[in-house]
């Protein structure tokens, strides 16, 4: 029954799209009418996504034992469209609609600043509906259609600001990668369906393809879902497309759509594909580890706030895939408890990332709105002008840097707990590989923390670097409400993780046949992943400690050392010149890390130009970075396609007889093949 209600919600979202067009296209709309359209669309989206979220929560807790099914007479004739909410779908519906609700609330305020709202309003609810449909789909056809619908609507949102040339390029690359990914998924479903073409997921679940075929499906899914999720080296579109969209859509794309891609991966690999081979996990783990480290290294080199966040999405997808890879490894070796732990860690991180990445994108959107720039080198000192935004952004930074007591720490800690179980694995390859991946994970966590020190410090602390940053004003109350809501969620999920782990229990039970021990009974709201003697974590305790020690330290400094607030010049380390350009910049912050990793990973070169003595030209220091993945993987393909297109262009201008001859020769050749074929 739940799935029917959920489909009503989706229908409501789909209906909002034409309403947005009608409202927006009313004769010669001016400001107020468009304002009404904005409020109606985002307000309605907020209500619908909230109800969908409640439906999903209800089905996660109450109806998790028996999935709720419905078949609609849509789509392919005689097959129809199957929809289903089981525990996995319910969990991802929560993630999708929570992100959707927060983005709608944020957009109630943020959307008013949109230059051309009609380019955003109709696609926004359709995009939300598409993501819901992907998660609910129960046959390959409706899954792929919804998936492609999701890609197309998000593409429309990416190119909403088409006046900027860069956005058009981003949209183009996104469209290419999205079609490529869908092609891979289509092939994988074709293999899963087998020669009889059973496109319903039920039939796929029942039939297990032979090992070689299953491995091929795994690789295709890794390419198809991975390209949407942003797995290295298929991530190239992500840092281009996510920042190009309006900020609330960026939040949805980064926080939610990548999770829908993870859902696709989990659904096919854990649910439909049957028992895994042990070496699958090696592939997934390797991809996850590389993705995590490369994502954060790219992010460190980036000084555009939104692109930095997009690269961090790549990193977090890597962390999630590490969790999923561990779960595969344990599942293949018949260690269901450990598999449940690793899968819980991965899915918990899915939830966490959707929350704090949305929060950070909202913060970046508020900054963009207030200052008109995304370049961190033009910001600075915003904590004075936008104190509340600065506070919630800081909470997001702490959460994504995996610092206790916030939620990012819990899921990464759980992942490490799963990694620490790897010596029990029987196969030597995994025994060696998992600790190496653990090292990559630790490295990426540390670099992420460094990166967010940069992001927060350079944007919000210090002094304003440009007049625009100096004139910034605090964002509106709706946007702030959305950000405070997500920040509170980060904190709650961080100090009470046991409830979320318990909520994930039905999901892991259905996918690996086991779930983590029940956490609600553990004293003092601790979580105990394996056994009390091994490890436990109490977020509440850490929170209380942080609050108490922080307040005592602040009290001691302010009351005992000097009893009043002092304002001193910032970054005044021996510079009498008070120009804001003398501050520590984002690139100076990243320089040590660039020196360590940049030469090998990015072929970074620093070019110093020193004018000859007596010349009045300034000395310059230039940094050149090269994206080796682009050069190695994308540029040759693009060049080859260009070349082939150039050569094949001749075929467009043949005479009629030549076309006929082509058809004729092709037919005869095929018949010849048929005749000669043994």
């Amino acid at each position: 029954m739940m799935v029917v209600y959920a489909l009503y919600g989706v229908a409501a979202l789909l209906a909002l799209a034409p309403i947005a067009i009608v409202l927006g296209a009313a004769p010669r709309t001016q400001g107020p009418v468009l304002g009404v359209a904005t409020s109606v669309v985002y307000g309605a989206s907020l209500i619908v996504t909230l109800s969908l979220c409640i439906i999903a929560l209800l089905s996660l807790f109450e109806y998790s034992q028996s999935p709720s099914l419905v078949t609609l007479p849509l789509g392919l004739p005689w097959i129809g469209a199957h929809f289903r909410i089981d525990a996995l779908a319910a969990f991802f519906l929560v993630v999708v609609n929570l992100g959707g609700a927060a983005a709608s609330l944020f957009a109630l305020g943020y959307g008013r600043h949109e230059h051309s709202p009609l380019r955003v309003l109709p696609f926004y609810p359709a995009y939300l509906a598409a993501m819901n449909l992907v998660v609910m789909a129960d046959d390959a056809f409706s899954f792929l259609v919804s998936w492609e619908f999701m890609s197309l609507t998000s593409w429309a949102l990416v190119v909403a600001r088409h006046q900027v040339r860069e956005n058009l390029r981003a949209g183009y690359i996104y469209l290419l990668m999205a079609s490529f990914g869908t092609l891979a998924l289509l092939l994988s479903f074709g293999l899963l369906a087998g020669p009889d073409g059973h496109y319903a997921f039920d039939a796929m679940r029942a039939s297990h393809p032979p090992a070689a075929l299953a491995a091929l499906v795994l690789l295709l899914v890794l390419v198809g879902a991975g390209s949407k999720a942003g797995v290295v080296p298929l991530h190239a579109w992500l840092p281009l497309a996510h920042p190009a969209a309006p900020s609330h859509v960026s939040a949805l794309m980064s926080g939610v759509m990548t999770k829908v891609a993870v859902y696709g991966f989990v659904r096919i690999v854990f649910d439909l594909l049957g028992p895994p081979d042990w070496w699958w996990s090696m592939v997934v783990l390797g991809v996850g580890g590389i993705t995590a480290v490369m994502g954060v290294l790219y992010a460190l080199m980036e000084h555009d706030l939104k692109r930095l966040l997009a690269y961090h999405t790549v990193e977090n997808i890597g962390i999630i895939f590490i969790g999923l890879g561990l779960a595969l490894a344990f599942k293949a070796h018949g260690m269901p408890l450990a598999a449940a732990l690793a899968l819980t860690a991965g899915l918990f991180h899915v939830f966490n990332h959707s929350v704090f990445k949305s929060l950070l994108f909202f913060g970046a959107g508020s900054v963009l709105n207030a200052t008109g720039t995304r370049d961190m080198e033009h910001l600075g000192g915003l904590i004075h002008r936008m104190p509340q935004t600065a506070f919630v952004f800081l909470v997001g930074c702490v959460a994504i840097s995996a610092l206790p007591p916030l939620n990012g720490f819990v899921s990464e800690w759980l992942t490490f707990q799963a990694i620490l179980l790897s010596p029990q694995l029987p196969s030597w390859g995994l025994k060696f590989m998992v600790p190496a991946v653990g090292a990559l994970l630790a490295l990426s966590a540390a670099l992420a923390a460094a990166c967010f020190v940069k992001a927060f410090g350079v944007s919000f602390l210090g002094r304003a670097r440009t007049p625009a940053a100096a004139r910034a004003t605090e964002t509106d109350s709706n946007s702030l409400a959305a950000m405070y809501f997500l920040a509170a969620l980060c904190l709650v999920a961080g100090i009470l993780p046991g409830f979320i782990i318990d909520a994930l229990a039905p999901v892991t039970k259905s996918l690996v046949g086991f779930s983590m021990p029940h956490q609600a009974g553990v004293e003092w709201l601790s979580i105990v992943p394996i056994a009390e003697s091994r490890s436990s974590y109490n977020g509440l305790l850490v929170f209380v400690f942080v609050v108490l020690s922080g307040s005592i330290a602040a009290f001691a400094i302010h009351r005992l050392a000097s009893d009043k607030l002092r304002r001193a010049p910032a970054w005044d380390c021996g510079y009498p010149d008070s120009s804001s350009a003398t501050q520590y910049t984002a690139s100076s912050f990243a320089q040590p890390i660039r020196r360590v990793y940049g030469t090998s990973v990015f072929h970074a070169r620093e070019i110093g130009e020193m004018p000859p003595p007596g010349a009045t030209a300034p000395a310059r220091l230039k940094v050149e970075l090269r994206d080796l993945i682009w050069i190695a993987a994308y540029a040759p393909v693009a060049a080859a396609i260009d070349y082939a297109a150039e050569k094949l262009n001749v075929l467009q201008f043949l005479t009629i007889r030549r076309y006929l001859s082509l058809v004729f020769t092709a037919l005869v050749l095929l018949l010849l093949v048929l005749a000669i074929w043994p």
Partner: protein
Amino acid sequence: MRGITFDVAHMLAGSLVLVSFMQLYQDRLYALLNIFALHALILAASVAWQAFIQDAPHLYLTAMIALVFKAIVIPVALHRIIVKLGIHREIETAVGVGPAMLLGMGLVALSMVVMLRVTAEADPLAREDLAFALSVVLLGLLMMVTRRNAVSQVIGFMSLENGLVLAATGAKGMPLVVEISVAFSVLIAFIVIGIFLFRIRERFDTVDLQALDRFRGERR
């Protein structure tokens, strides 16, 4: 009975292939048209024979359609078009008669090999029929490729379609609606092509397709 039905069906289908060969070496349009009418006539006879031996009365309707439209209406109409266009004296071939005939023989051999291999279990009558039908289709296509004049390409297309009808009637159980729709689509195609012929003629003073290519600025 079995022997004579098979032989007659075989003979009619075989003559259709033979007439297709005759079409290949006609270099005058009037002659080509007459051969095409003969082609359609044999088709009608073949379909009627199939109707008789399969005891399928609806095939008589197909035979009637073939007889009326393809053997009478279309040749007469094309005849008038040729007269109107004033191209009845033109001689045209893109590929010489000899090579065309050799190619055609190759195609017939190919279709025999393919069809006899593929339909090993089928009824021998249907097997032969399908093999001949494929030959007729391929020969029609060959004619479209080797001719330059639009009218002879239309005839090539029509004889190709005759091959399709032959295949359809040879296989038992082809619904009538399919045959009617095929016949109807051919009629429509004929009308459209006829109109286009006149339009092309109005604009370029010829129906030689080379003129169109020249107009598009293409090298040949």
